[in-house]
């Protein structure tokens, strides 16, 4: 089996997207997001494993940050001043790998090795194996503290990069996030953005039936963060939030999303946290994402 990407084999010039005017940028980002979703479905099909629900919900936010806003490229991968994208919800490595492959960090064909013996594409990302990965996540609640450290380093070094951290919503039940949230606000880290993939589902149930998070925007605001609550599957809304005025504070983007977004029979269903689609379901999914 081989991974297919871009309809009619006509790749977008992804490196150019960041320089487009905002409206056009949002439209192109939508196309990239669709490709990422197609890659995710194919990777999980080949590996017969993965976390499809969370991959599909976080895709638009990841794509918007990586291709629309941040200075992230293979050419600048070792540049000390590069922007940092940290996927704290590391179980969604397939989405991150797809983004990195489309951005040219490694060949798209390598995605076929996802979770295969000795592959660099482990089930959770490893910065020592894959350029573009900034943090070895997997245990939930690690990304934000690392992000805070990165944001402090950015200021201390005077290099002024941006740090974007993507967390799950269930993940916010880990206390480490709130410890980091306090540090970030205390230190006025206006170069730090946390994107909460608010799909309202965790591994075994709805967040609000497990350990409720609402009112989530108020929580971040009370911790001293600037807050934007938006449609997290809308690239235009994401672009706007990522570039909004932060008033000297760290910014929390509550990205309201659908877990499994883009594939009707996966959307908003708890059992699709890490279920693997059958061959027929893969075909259906790719049709819906055509």
């Amino acid at each position, binding site marked *: 089996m081989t991974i297919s990407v871009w309809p009619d084999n006509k790749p977008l010039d992804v490196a150019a997207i960041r320089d487009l005017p905002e409206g056009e940028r949002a439209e192109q980002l939508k196309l990239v997001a669709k490709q990422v979703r197609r890659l995710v479905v194919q990777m999980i099909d080949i590996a017969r494993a993965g976390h499809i629900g969370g991959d599909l919900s976080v895709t638009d936010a990841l794509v918007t940050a990586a291709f629309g806003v941040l200075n992230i490229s293979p050419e600048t991968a070792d540049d000390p001043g590069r922007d940092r994208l940290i996927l704290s919800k590391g179980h969604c490595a397939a989405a991150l790998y797809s983004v990195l492959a489309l951005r040219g960090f490694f060949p798209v064909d390598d995605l076929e090795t996802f979770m*295969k*013996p*000795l592959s660099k594409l*482990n*089930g959770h990302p490893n910065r020592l194996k894959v350029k573009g990965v900034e943090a070895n*996540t997997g245990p939930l609640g690690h990304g934000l503290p690392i992000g805070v450290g990165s944001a402090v380093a950015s200021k201390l070094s005077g290099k002024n990069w941006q740090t974007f951290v993507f967390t799950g919503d*269930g993940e916010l*039940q880990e206390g480490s996030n709130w410890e980091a949230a306090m540090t970030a606000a205390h230190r006025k880290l206006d170069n730090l953005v946390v994107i909460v993939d608010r799909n309202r589902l965790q591994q*075994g149930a709805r967040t609000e039936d497990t350990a409720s998070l609402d009112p989530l925007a108020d929580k971040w605001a009370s911790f001293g963060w600037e807050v934007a609550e938006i449609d997290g599957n809308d690239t235009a809304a994401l672009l706007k939030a990522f570039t909004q005025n932060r008033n000297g504070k760290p910014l929390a983007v509550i990205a309201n999303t659908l877990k499994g977004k883009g594939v009707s029979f996966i959307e908003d269903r708890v059992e699709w946290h890490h279920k693997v689609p059958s061959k027929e379901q893969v075909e259906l999914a790719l049709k819906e994402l055509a």
Partner: protein
Amino acid sequence: MNAHSSVSNETFDCRVAFSEKLIALAEADPRIVAVCNDSVGSSNLNAFRDRFPDRLINVGIAEQNMVGVAAGLANGGFIPFVCAAGPFLSGRATEQVKADVAYSNYGIVLCAMSPGMAYGELGPTHHSIEDLSWMRAIDNLDVLVPADPEQTKAAMDWAVKSGRPIYMRVGRHKVPSVTPADRDVAFTFGKIDVTGDGSDVALVATGTLVSRALEAQAILAAEGILARVLNVSTIKPIDAETIIKAAKETKGLVVAEEGVLEGGLGAAVSMTLSENHPAKAKFLGVTSFAPTGSNDFLLEHFGLTAKGIADAARKLVG
């Protein structure tokens, strides 16, 4: 089971045994509760939840909180079975295990689900290979590694009866039964179960490695090398007597575990030997962060197989 026959191909699920036993224990004793971290499915607690909805406390994805909550429940007269994936239970909540469970001397059963490299290709963050070292280092905490479903159930009986602070591994992948048919109980706290009386080499194993050691015993027997297999299902306190006896009656020991070598079963055996009866030994375990691969692939990768154990044994006695 015959000492020199290989283990049966039929395999059994420790998590199913765990789930059934937990429900049976809870039926008999209203003090028993389950505490988990968004791990109802992965800990096989669905049936428990349906039967005792009020007695399942799912705190969400919050392991430090989970173990602290268990201590509070124990303080309030309950017997918590804390059920979470091994890496996060032993790693994330280590200090709670030390201060709130062991130092506070609460009867809490910390059930480390899917231990060792059971999570295969999910990678080192999800491998629980340091847990035996970390947990052994904590005073007043018993550390159990049942090797099959019968042992799992018997260990749970013991846990409730003893009222002790306990850390217990619960395997994810199906395993052959390693409990000899003639045993009255599948698990005796603090006692190593010995299969065979071979005088060439002692194969000392725990958990998933026990069935592999039994296979190695058969491989070696075919070559005329006589081995005995020590199934260590209580890692702490260690059964020094049986280890010393094996050292005295054989030419050496091969120790195998699905975990790191620094501080686990091998370290316990090593200290026992050097203080009492220095002997030749070879230690097999997980020697680095694993590459990507399935559980079976990785066991193979680190030589944690019947062949790996037999090879080490041959070198020792040869």
